[in-house]
């Protein structure tokens, strides 16, 4: 991965207001680095140990809205963390999902061909009372914004 500090021409990298653990990016960045963006209800979550020794979870969304990419009625994607038996792994920069949640997710292809979240916790928007709380915008307004970005990329 490239270092963001390699830019020359007397550029130094400066103190940005940033997450303690995540450097923020815009919606445009999220759209440009995603292959699939969908909104819908989380209908199931399964978790298991994978070859890397971590617990991964697979969440399936019943899709209400396809913002970008090819998606069927249901989309399954993976993220780090979850519970297997008596053991739970939580990851500070990873989002968590619950069955019944209404969400919008930014997804990309993983190396194993499955879908995974695009960029940690920034990959999830949570719909509460008709608004996506992370951006404080109504459902349709935000969907339209993302669609416009996707159409112009």
């Amino acid at each position: 991965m490239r270092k963001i500090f390699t830019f020359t021409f007397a550029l130094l990298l400066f103190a940005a207001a940033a997450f303690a653990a995540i450097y923020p990016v815009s919606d445009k960045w999220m759209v440009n680095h995603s292959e699939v963006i969908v909104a819908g209800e989380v209908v199931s979550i399964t978790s298991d140990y994978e070859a890397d020794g971590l617990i991964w979870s697979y969440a399936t969304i019943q899709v209400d809205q396809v913002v970008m990419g090819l998606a069927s009625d249901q989309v399954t994607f993976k993220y780090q963390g979850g519970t297997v038996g008596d053991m739970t792994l939580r990851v500070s920069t990873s989002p968590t999902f619950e069955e019944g949640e209404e969400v919008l997710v930014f997804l990309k292809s993983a190396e194993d061909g499955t879908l995974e979240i695009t960029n940690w916790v920034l990959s999830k928007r949570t719909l509460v009372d008709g608004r996506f709380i992370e951006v404080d915008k109504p459902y349709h307004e935000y969907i339209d914004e993302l669609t416009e970005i996707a159409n112009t990329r």
Partner: protein
Amino acid sequence: MIRNITLIVVALALLTSYSFGYELLGYDWTYKPDPMGEDIEFNPNCSDYGCGSEEDQINALWQGANAWTDYAKAEFEFTYGGWTTRNSYTYDAHNIIFFSPGSSGNAIATTYWWYQSGGRMTEADIVFWDGAFSFSAYQSPSYSEFDVWNIAAHELGHVHGLGHSSVSASTMYAYSSQGETSKRTLHSDDVNGAQALYGEQDPFSVIIHTDDDSYARVFSGSGSFDFTVLAYNNDSYGHLFRATIDLVLPDGSTHGPLLNLNSVYIPANSTLTYNGSQNIPGNAPVGEYKYRARMRDTSYPYDDYDVSYFMFWVEGKAVAGLEEAGEGWALTGSGFESAEPLAGEGGQAHTSTAIIPGAFELRQNVPNPFNPNTNINFDLYEEANVSLQIYNLKGQLIKTLLDNRALDFGPYSIEWDATDSDGNSVSAGIYLYKLTVGNEIALKKMTLIK
């Protein structure tokens, strides 16, 4: 037009319970028998230039742990587990911190918690993603670097079982910035969170530190360092205590006490200070030392009220020298004589929401006013073509620093040396700098003084 970044804690919070300020995750170490504590091991494998030596990194990481041990005054302490070469956050019964050169999107650091039913945390690992971001283990990180101590203190708060706080001045606040060091020490909200989990310590506590905490203390043979010991009494009564300083040698044995003050009186709700200088003899064994201050009961001198320590290292071939000269582990100093009342801790409450930024944010140049160099700083939250130009107050273009340059996301700082496009120095006065990102423009003023 620039959209300010407003921040949503909700998106980042790992909620199981919530109260104003600190946040309890619902999994912790409280099931452990007293004294509650966890070994944490450090892998000083940071490859960034600013990380310095392995000892620099160990010191900075340990200071992050010490922030909790020394200031939280909760019945939980991290203990130094030593160096490790482990570099995996899988479940292996070791709590570790390491640096990963790998790619991890926009994550700066990540804590991996493993816990079982009942919220019994069984392991916590922290990874600093230095493949994407630069870190500093030095006392003063540059604008381009994340401070290891600062970030470690935050992540180790997570390891305690604390989530993000809504108090912006707290270490556990969700957001930080490059160059920030203010979260190295704890805010009262962090202290309250730790104590809510683990209960409050005895009212007596001690902290020992050196003035160069984040620099490696590596000595080739002989040397010396200055240190300060702070003794606290939060009780409503004055007490006598016994103050000692000793060493844990590289072979694990104890040397000392180097200081042994039997009856130090500390008034109610007060702090005592001791300033000292410690000599290191030329024949000191090579290896890692713990320099340890103890605050002990006067009646039961082996009962510690509290212990605090830092590490230093002796390297190279040990030679005969000061030991033979009679100096040895000489400690000189004075203090513990006049008490200072404990100050109350204040905090800035901050209820914030939101999070997804716009395309960019232009910041004030640093320094300002300036002569002749200043840095113009901005954050880019997506890839974009960027121009940066300097104008005078008549609207005349003085210099173009960036000309429609394609940049990736990230923080940037562009230096201007107060010259025009021909290389001539410009006169003192107010200038404007204009940042153009795509179709959006931002403008700020700066003042050149002569």
